């Protein structure tokens, strides 16, 4: 009776699943290698954006979806990550050229670190900032937390506009070395996935979800809810900073105006559309929405249907996109995946059943592949 049968608590096929994970990671890097040789600049850019957006979505989902804190300060964390990392990778010569109106704060002029350290420092700076914000803000719940964090992001933006000796003010930073290629971006995405999944799959993940589900019951169970909410906020802030750092190096130009509420909103959109509380949802959502946003550019070009001519309307894709979002919220509030997750067992079960009923599933698969192909092809203007 006491000696519990170990099978119900250990995951079935653990070894197979671990090997599958490693195999697919290898496959991913093989894909990046292939993409480096075969895709043009535009497609590569899209691929990179997917990775960075996935990192940002994962970090927001960790805060909002898993720990239940409605945070709208993501653009602020990103800005901190982007600026700190940019300051670390710009060469002294570049810095001398950029800070024209006001000289750069002296100790920063010569400061340089390798890219990986810079991104890490960007994340660390964002995490420390979130720790400072967490102290007063963690006693707020629900919408109030959202408003407070939104205010924080605005403060960061205004600060960065006015701290010219450090941030070069409203002009921003130009010519940031474009180190953030697909290798770096996807390596950081995997690192993010690993850290967030290892936290969520452990009992600490259960603790975070319990605070989200019922804070009073969680406290009764001996959980220091403030401490764990702060932890989640800082871990999320760290990866938001990492995402911002990569984004800065990817677009090579950053300015305070770039990190406005719109940016937070885009990430929130990915998280909600992908599924609050689903890691898989965030990654899939980042891919789908990033590609869809590009694909929708077609709508902004002049169209000729023969009988009617539509002139190009800039901003039209945002209209369409908002309509799509409204439809998601009305008809599928839980997002694409709800809080379901990808699992290798489900994956292999699916292919097991594929063997039995190949006709049905193959049809699904082909339709899905055709959709993916269409989305990818449609992205090109």
């Amino acid at each position, binding site marked *: *009776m*006491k000696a*519990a049968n*170990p099978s*119900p*608590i250990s995951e079935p096929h653990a070894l197979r699943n671990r090997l599958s994970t490693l195999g697919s990671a290898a496959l991913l890097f093989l894909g990046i290698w292939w993409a480096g040789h075969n895709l043009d600049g535009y497609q590569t850019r899209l691929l990179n954006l997917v990775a960075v957006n996935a990192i940002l979505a994962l970090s927001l989902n960790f805060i909002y979806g898993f720990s239940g804190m409605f945070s709208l300060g993501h653009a602020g964390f990103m800005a901190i990550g982007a600026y700190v990392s940019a300051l670390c990778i710009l060469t002294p010569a570049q810095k001398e050229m950029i800070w024209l109106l006001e000289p750069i704060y002296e100790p920063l002029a010569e400061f340089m670190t390798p890219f990986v350290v810079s991104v890490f420092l960007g994340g660390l700076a964002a995490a420390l900032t979130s720790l400072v914000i967490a102290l007063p803000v963690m006693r707020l719940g629900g919408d109030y937390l959202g408003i407070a964090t939104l205010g924080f992001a605005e403060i960061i933006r205004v600060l960065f506009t006015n701290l010219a000796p450090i941030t070069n003010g409203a002009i921003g930073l130009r010519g940031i070395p474009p180190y953030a290629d697909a290798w770096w971006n996807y390596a950081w995405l995997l690192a993010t996935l*690993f*850290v967030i999944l*290892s*936290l969520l799959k*452990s*009992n*600490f993940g*259960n*603790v975070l*979800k*319990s605070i*989200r*589900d*019922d804070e*009073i*019951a*969680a*406290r*009764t*169970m*001996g*959980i*220091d*809810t403030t401490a*764990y909410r702060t*932890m989640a906020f800082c871990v999320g802030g760290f990866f938001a900073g990492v995402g911002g750092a990569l984004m800065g190096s990817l677009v090579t130009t950053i300015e305070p105006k770039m990190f406005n509420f719109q940016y937070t909103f885009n990430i929130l959109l990915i998280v909600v559309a992908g599924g609050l*509380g689903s890691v898989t949802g965030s990654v899939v959502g980042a891919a789908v929405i990033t590609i869809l946003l590009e694909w929708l550019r077609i709508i902004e070009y002049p169209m000729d249907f023969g009988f009617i001519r539509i002139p190009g309307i800039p901003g039209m894709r945002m209209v369409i996109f908002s309509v799509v979002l409204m439809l998601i919220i009305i008809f599928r509030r839980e997002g694409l995946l709800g*809080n379901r997750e990808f699992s290798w067992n489900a994956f292999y079960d699916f292919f097991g059943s594929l063997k039995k009923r190949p006709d049905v599933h193959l049809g699904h698969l082909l339709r899905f592949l055709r959709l993916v192909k269409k989305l990818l092809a449609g992205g090109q203007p």
Partner: protein
Amino acid sequence: MSECTLAEDNAGRFTAKTLHGPGGSGGVAPPGGPLLELSGVTMRFGGVTAIDDLSLKIPPQKVVGLIGPNGAGKTTVFNVVTGFYQPQEGRLEFEGQPLAGLPPQKICALGIARTFQNIRLFAGGTVLDNVMVGCHVRRKARWWMAPLCLPVFLREEKSIKEKSYALLERVGLARAAREKANSLPYGAQRRLEIARALATEPSFLLLDEPAAGMNPQESEDLMHFIAKIREEFNLSILMIEHDMKVVMGVCSHIWVLDYGRLIAEGGPEEIRNNPWVITAYLGRPAEGGPHSA
């Protein structure tokens, strides 16, 4: 003997030593002091006095009950003991240690666990996840050890899972371990909430209306279940319950609250026949009317 002082402490509407007549069966005198002692605890919300000068001693290793009409302040007592409310007056001592000012999570760490009147399970998790959350308070590894895959963390993760599963087996929910907690039938959810509380390794367990909404068969099972866990986990249980069959069946000692005041205490038999208790529950008999005591 301790009961006498309790009775005397109670001044007010029901000033009376009705509690223990000369023949009052004591039987609760604990060897080596009480597990939990409340003395003179008063809890006010604005002008409302929810608990008025309450003193009681919970003996170790016993199932005891707290009853009273609706609004008598029973759940408030639970909230005071578990640290959700800080009383304006009075002292609380658990195993000789004062509880004043401690937040709920610290009190849980000391060994006091509770369940809720309206079940509060973590709806997003599985049955096993719920119990695992209960194990958290006893764990030693820190959260940052998780991404580093430190062996001490991995070992503890495994032992938490095993412990939780073993607990589920003991409360008869092992087969449902992987199901969503809120998909369980009502009675099973109650048992799961108790299992989750037991996972915190308490020496004192507070059950808030465990039999609420149960049919006679279910509450019968619950009585055996409560007696069983008291025995197996070697703890004290204080329960709030309206189902008198359950209260009288398992509790060795009962306190009765009315309007925040202790009006009676004693063994089940005494309480059943106590005129004050009957008055509190049923109202005063009409002048000259029949009164069955």
